[in-house]
């Protein structure tokens, strides 16, 4: 699996959208952790992970989300996953994380969640 570049979009002072790219695996999961942690330290309490391009996420990739979500939730925000394909959603289902994580169908729903918490 080759590494991929993350891209970002500032939604507002509280919310950052990260396009997570094609792959999060053991080779680049640390980059995801660093990126999310940096965003949290800068005050973005909501992190939207747009997984529209994602084709593969390894256990380390899932771990990068689990390892950083607490900070967002303690700050009154969340890490919101959106636009994930059936295969990626299957990974979250296999790990029984679909109730634990905040997963939305699309970016609009993710943004709504950031505004309203639903």
């Amino acid at each position, binding site marked *: *699996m080759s590494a991929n570049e993350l891209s970002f979009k500032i939604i507002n002072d509280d919310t950052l959208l990260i396009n997570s790219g094609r792959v999060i695996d053991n080779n680049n999961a640390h980059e995801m952790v660093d990126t999310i942690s940096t965003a949290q330290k800068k005050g973005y309490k909501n992190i939207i992970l747009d997984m529209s391009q994602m084709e*593969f996420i390894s256990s380390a990739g899932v771990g990068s989300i689990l390892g950083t*979500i607490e900070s967002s939730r303690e700050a009154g925000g969340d890490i919101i996953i959106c636009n994930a394909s059936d*295969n990626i959603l*299957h990974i979250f289902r296999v*790990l029984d994380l679909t109730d*634990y994580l905040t997963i939305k169908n699309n970016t609009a729903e993710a943004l709504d969640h950031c505004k309203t918490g639903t």
Partner: protein
Amino acid sequence: MPFDAKTNDIIPVPGEITNDSGRDFFENLKTLVSGSGGPINIDCSAMKMVTSNHVSILWQARDICAGANREIHLLSASQNLIRVLKMMDLADLFNIHPAEGNPMGEITQTFLLAPQNNFSADIDLSVENINRAMIKFLEYLAGFGISERITFELQTVFYEIATNLRIHVGRQCGNSFKFMTTCASDKLIMRFVDSGHSFDPTKVPNHLNPDMAIMTKQQGGLGLIMVKRMIDRMSYERKNGCLNILTLEKKLDISHECQ
């Protein structure tokens, strides 16, 4: 047969890949690539069956063309070839021109690559070699016409086990592991053999507590949970005091039984 690159700008892919036909193909390709600029056209009409060797030479041809900054065009690509390239995430690397009457994405045949019942590889424990082996494994799986979901699960299983071996066994021995598969009836049997310390993955708990995982910032173990939930059976054997043999079984959703 020599290919006159001056009067022809199309190279045919051999219907059957042999040492001679493969060598001729690459000699002709290199002759064309060394000529004047412009796209390289590969005629795929002779590929009645798409084998892993065909995919391999197309992949290598693409690398050769990319090295010379030449576009590569696949002409008269069959549905099977298109599907194989899409499933292996290689379709974007080529300019694909479907054969007439075969629009992109329309699939009418069940079998893709000519099925091979067995696959085995000695895999050095590096990221690059594991990725290369995974591509070969996907080529092998494409021959069974299984669903994208099952293929994705098997890809994930392979990656997670291989990566665990790279992280844990690599530190101990720094060498390789052996990966073997065989298809029996309607299931795929995968075997990972390594010479690291004794480790029985069947003993790892099968559940994930997200709160506990977060509290402990769980770094590992998720991969084995994923594997266990994606396969039908797992067994482990420590052999001769020095070999770990992990055997996984996965039922395939195929319309024919393996021979």
